[in-house]
């Protein structure tokens, strides 16, 4: 028998373009099945994009609310324990801290508040005993309340909303008028329904005309359960609090985003000679807060998205496997015509990845639409990282690739002789 060397026989070969062409052709064979195969990825990627988008949107919404309130508040108090204070330096706020602070950019309003030193012989915890309207007498029960001495700027700084009447102003402050504004809760405890007649209340036998009731405040909530009187009046009656005793505070309202900057400058603005006598409390950096919320929510939703993607991948693997079984005769034919195992595996893998890619694109569109729809319904600003959208088709293709691995391997191992008989 004459033999010819097998060395001259070239391996079966196929260009990448042809493999791609055959894969696309394979996808088009059964458009309905291709759509169903992609459906798993569509659902998985939709949930992936929607959950990530909703997580960032919700986190953005929460942190913007934090920004709007907490991040606009700065509180300054005079330091109590300052053992290293140089000789000659007087602690405390100085003469007019509100005027000094008002020169800082980004500051909207500020107001001093402190608790006057009203001593009672009965109970040290009682700040003041308040008699309901009318002169004090033994038959009327007194009510224990907090007394807060505040400057007119305090009302603006805490965003006080009046239920009725008015706040006291510079006039009352300058003249050390005995006027009072009650917090809503205090008015209720006294049974005080109206201030039209400017009823008089007594704090430790000192008469004060009630000129207004505060319905709500956005910060320093203690104001709602207190009696608010002008700081100068309190100083006249009970004496000013000593500097460096930690009793006086300045609440500051800033423009959105300016709290950090105002907080950094305010001590120097009020006490340029020795800023260390004041203690400044600032809200946490909103960026850190936002990132924290984002991380928490993204982690939660990411877990959900991964579960959905896994379910999608199982769906693709299942459908691709069924497709392989259905196409066994075609695989046999291709093998008989010269296809290598590699060509068959590559074709099925590319088909699977291609369907995953298409599913990823559709899923990204649906996911983004969901985020926009929910945001519109909730009147939120939709926040969606472009990288999520861009990566979604690649994630889909990756899922298709993984899910198609086993079916492709099965397809490649199909024996052509058996396949052609089936």
């Amino acid at each position, binding site marked *: 028998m004459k033999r010819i060397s097998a060395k001259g*026989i070239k391996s*079966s070969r196929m260009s990448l373009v042809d493999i791609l062409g055959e894969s696309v052709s394979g996808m088009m064979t059964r458009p309905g099945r291709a759509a169903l195969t992609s459906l798993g990825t569509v659902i998985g990627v939709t949930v992936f994009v929607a959950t990530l988008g909703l997580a960032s949107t919700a986190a953005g919404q929460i942190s913007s609310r934090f920004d709007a309130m907490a991040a606009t508040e700065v509180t300054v108090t005079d330091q109590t324990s300052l053992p290293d204070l140089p000789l000659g330096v007087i602690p405390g706020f100085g003469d007019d801290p509100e005027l000094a602070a008002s020169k800082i950019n980004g500051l909207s309003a500020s107001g001093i508040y402190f608790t006057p030193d009203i001593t009672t012989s009965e109970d040290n915890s009682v700040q003041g005993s308040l008699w309901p309207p009318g002169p004090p007498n033994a038959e009327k029960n007194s009510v224990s309340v907090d007394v807060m001495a505040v400057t007119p700027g305090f009302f603006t700084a805490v965003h006080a909303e009046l239920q009725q009447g008015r706040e006291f102003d510079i006039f009352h402050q300058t003249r050390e008028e005995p006027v009072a504004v009650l917090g809503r809760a205090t008015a209720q405890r006294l049974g005080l329904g109206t201030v039209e007649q400017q009823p008089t209340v007594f704090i430790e036998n000192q008469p004060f005309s009630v000129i207004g009731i505060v319905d709500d405040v956005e910060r320093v909530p203690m104001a709602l359960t207190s009696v608010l009187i002008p700081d100068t009046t309190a100083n006249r009656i009970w004496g000013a609090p000593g500097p460096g005793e930690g009793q006086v505070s300045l609440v500051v309202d800033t423009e959105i985003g300016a709290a950090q900057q105002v907080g950094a400058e305010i001590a120097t603005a009020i006490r340029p000679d020795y800023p260390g006598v004041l203690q400044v409390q600032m809200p946490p950096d909103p960026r850190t807060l936002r990132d924290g919320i984002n991380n928490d929510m993204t982690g939660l939703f990411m877990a959900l998205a991964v579960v959905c993607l896994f379910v999608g991948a199982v769906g693709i693997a299942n459908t691709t496997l069924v497709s392989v079984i259905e196409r066994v005769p075609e695989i046999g034919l291709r093998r008989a015509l*010269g296809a*290598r*195992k590699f060509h068959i595996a590559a074709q099925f893998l590319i088909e699977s990845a291609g369907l995953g890619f298409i599913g990823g694109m559709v899923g990204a569109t649906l996911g983004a639409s969901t985020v926009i729809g929910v945001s519109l319904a909730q009147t939120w600003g939709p926040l969606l990282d472009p990288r999520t959208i861009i990566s979604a088709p690649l994630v889909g293709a990756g899922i298709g690739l993984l899910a198609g691995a086993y079916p492709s391997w099965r397809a490649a191992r199909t024996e052509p*002789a058996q396949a052609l008989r089936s």
Partner: protein
Amino acid sequence: MTYIINMQGVGRTFPGSVPVHALKDVNFMVSSGEYVTVVGPSGSGKSTFLNLIGLLDTPSVGTYLIDGIDPSTMGEKQRSALRGTRIGFVFQSFHLIGHQSAIANTQLGMVYNGVPRKQRITRARDSLARVGLSHREEAVAQTLSGGERQRVAIARALAGRPSLLLCDEPTGNLDSNNANSILALLDELHADDITLIVVTHDSEVAARGQRIVTVKDGHLSEKSQ
């Protein structure tokens, strides 16, 4: 002289708890341009014989050379290439890709053999013309009649310019008119010196071959025409 097919002492045993000896001591030679028909009852070993010739299976014993080349020394890549370039298959159930056009189906084998696209199209057109289907080039396979589908399958086999056309019951799924038409086409191909091996149950089809080989109980016998 180099035979297209040269089998010496070939046997095929399928292992198992009870091994099946599907083919035993087969000696079979086919020269270029011959028209051989293979007949035999179901379960005789006909399909195993066909699979061995078509390089879809490997013999358990013996030597098989195709065009003088021993495929047993080859890896999967070379065997696939040898199958794709030397053997053209025609099946009973046509095995066309239903949603593709006649010309796309005709090109399929060449796709795996690295034939450039332009050349593929030219050769596919020539093959379709040879089987009388030039006017149906763009027709989708599933819209073709049974006879047309088998012609496309033959065109696909011819386009690869094989040494051998291996036909497995080529008229098994056709009515008598289409069957006669396909047999006439095979006669034409034989007249053009194409080597043909046709496996059939039909004695009329078998009678068209120059040589009739019978497979029975795994043994091959031949009577001269």
